[in-house]
C-alpha cells in the first residue's frame, strides 16, 4: 500500500467514524403526510422546473428540487411570448409552446422530454420546433442532453446556458420567490420578502390573495435589479399570478408578466410566461 493510499484510508476512517446511525426504515418510509415539516419545501419545489425561453434560448434552471413534479408521467406545458427591441432590431421570440414530460431516468435522475414548437403568430425569426431530452438531477442540474441534432444547426439556439440574465430561475419570477422555502400559509396579504439569486436581487410583495375554482391564487409584484457579476442592467418588474392546489400546496399554474425599462437589458422588452402542471 502506498503512503498516499494509507493516508486516504486514514482520512476516510476519521470521516466515517463520525457517521451517525442511519435512520430507521420506519422513519425513512414515512409517507409524505407524516413528514409535514417538509411540505412547504415541496410546495415550492414544483417551481424547480424553471425553464425560460427567450430569443430561442431554452434554459433549464438549476439549483432547485422538482420533488413531486418529478413523478414519472407528470406533464407540464409552458408558453412564452416575448418581444424586445435592441438598437434598430426587434426580436420576437413568441408565442411558442414548450411541453415537458417527465420520466424516471434511474439513479435518482429525471428525464425531461422537451418539445418546443413555435405557435401561429411567431414569425420566421422563431427557431424551428425541436424535441430533445434533458436528463437532470432533482436540483435541475443538466447531466446530459440527447436528441439535439436538429437544434444544433439552428443559429442562436444554444443549449444549455446555465446562467444568463434572462435564462435562469430567478427570471421566471416565481420559482424562487419564496427564497428560503416558506410555508404557504405563512404568507399574508401585504407580506414582502427579498430574494438574492445569483446576482439578481428581487423584492417581492404579495398584493392579492384569493380563491378561484378551488385554487388558492396569489398575485405577487416583484422588482428585480442586478448586482455583480452582472453589469447594471437596470431594474425590471414582474407580476406573477400563481395558482396553488390547497390540498397539497403544489403550484399548478403560474403566469408571469415582465416589463423591462427602455434603458435596460433588452430595452422595452416584455414577456409573458405561463406554466401549467397538467397532472
Amino acid at each position, binding site marked *: 500500500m*502506498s*503512503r*498516499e*493510499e494509507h*493516508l*486516504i*484510508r*486514514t*482520512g*476516510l*476512517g*476519521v*470521516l*466515517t*467514524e*463520525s*457517521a*451517525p*446511525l*442511519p*435512520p430507521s*426504515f420506519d*422513519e*425513512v*418510509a*414515512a409517507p*409524505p403526510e407524516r*413528514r409535514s415539516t417538509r411540505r412547504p419545501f415541496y410546495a415550492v419545489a414544483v417551481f424547480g422546473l424553471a425553464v425560460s425561453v427567450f430569443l430561442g434560448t431554452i434554459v433549464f434552471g438549476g*439549483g432547485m*428540487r422538482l420533488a413531486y413534479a418529478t*413523478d*414519472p408521467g407528470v406533464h407540464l406545458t409552458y408558453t412564452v411570448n416575448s418581444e424586445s427591441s435592441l438598437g434598430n432590431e426587434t426580436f420576437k421570440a413568441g408565442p411558442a409552446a414548450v411541453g415537458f414530460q417527465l420520466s*424516471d431516468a*434511474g*439513479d*435518482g*435522475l429525471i428525464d425531461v422530454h422537451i418539445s418546443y414548437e413555435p405557435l401561429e403568430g411567431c414569425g420566421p425569426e422563431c427557431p424551428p420546433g425541436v424535441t430533445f431530452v434533458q436528463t437532470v*438531477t*432533482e*436540483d435541475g*442540474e443538466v447531466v446530459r442532453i440527447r436528441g439535439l441534432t436538429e437544434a444544433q444547426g439552428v443559429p442562436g439556439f444554444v443549449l444549455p446556458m446555465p446562467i444568463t440574465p434572462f435564462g435562469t430561475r430567478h427570471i421566471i419570477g416565481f420559482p424562487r420567490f419564496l427564497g428560503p422555502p416558506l410555508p404557504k400559509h405563512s404568507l399574508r396579504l401585504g407580506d414582502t420578502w427579498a430574494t438574492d439569486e445569483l446576482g439578481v436581487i428581487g423584492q417581492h410583495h404579495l398584493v392579492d390573495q384569493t380563491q378561484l375554482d378551488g385554487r388558492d391564487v396569489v398575485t405577487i409584484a416583484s422588482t428585480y435589479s442586478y448586482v455583480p457579476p452582472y453589469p447594471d442592467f437596470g431594474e425590471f418588474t414582474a407580476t406573477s399570478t400563481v395558482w396553488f392546489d390547497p390540498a397539497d400546496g403544489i403550484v399548478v399554474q403560474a403566469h408571469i408578466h415582465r416589463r423591462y425599462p427602455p434603458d435596460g437589458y433588452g430595452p422595452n422588452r416584455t414577456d409573458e410566461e405561463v406554466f401549467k402542471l397538467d397532472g
Partner: protein
Amino acid sequence: MMGQPKGGLVRGLDVKLSDREIYEKYSADLIRYATVLVGPDQAPDVVSTVVLRVLKRRSLGDLDDPKAYLFRSVMNECRSWGRRRKAGQVVLGRFFEREGSESLDSTVADRVSAAEAVWRLPPRLRSAAYLVYWLDLSISEAAQVLGVGPGTVKRYVHEARERIREELS
C-alpha cells in the same frame, strides 16, 4: 458485489427481500458514504430523501441492483446538497469533535491532517476514493456506481492520490 450482473445483489440470493430488509442491509454503508460526501449532519437527510423517493415509485426489490442504484442516488443527492450548503468548516468541526482537539498527539494530528486532506478533495475524487479504498470495490464496480467508465475511475483515484501526496508532503 456491485459488478455482478442484473439482480446479482438480491436476486442472486434467490430470495425476494423486503424493502425493509434491503434498506437495513445497506443503510449503514449508505450513511457512511453520505457522511464522507456531505458530512454527518446532512447524511441522514440525504439517505432518507433518496430512499423515500425510490419507495414512492417502486419497491427496492424491483431494482435490478439496489445497492448500486442507492449508492448512485446518494451521490447525486449529495451533489445537490453540496451546492445548497457551504458546510466545510462546520462539517469538519463535527468530524473532529471526537478526536480530542485540545491535546492532539502526533498520531491524532496525523489522522486529522489526513481527514482534512481527504475532505478537501473534490466530491468526485472523494467519492471514488471511498468506493475503492474504503469499500474495496474494484475499479469496474466503482465505475458502475459512479456511472462513469473504468478509465475515469482510475483517473479519479490517481488524482486523489496525487492531491493527497502534494498536500501532505
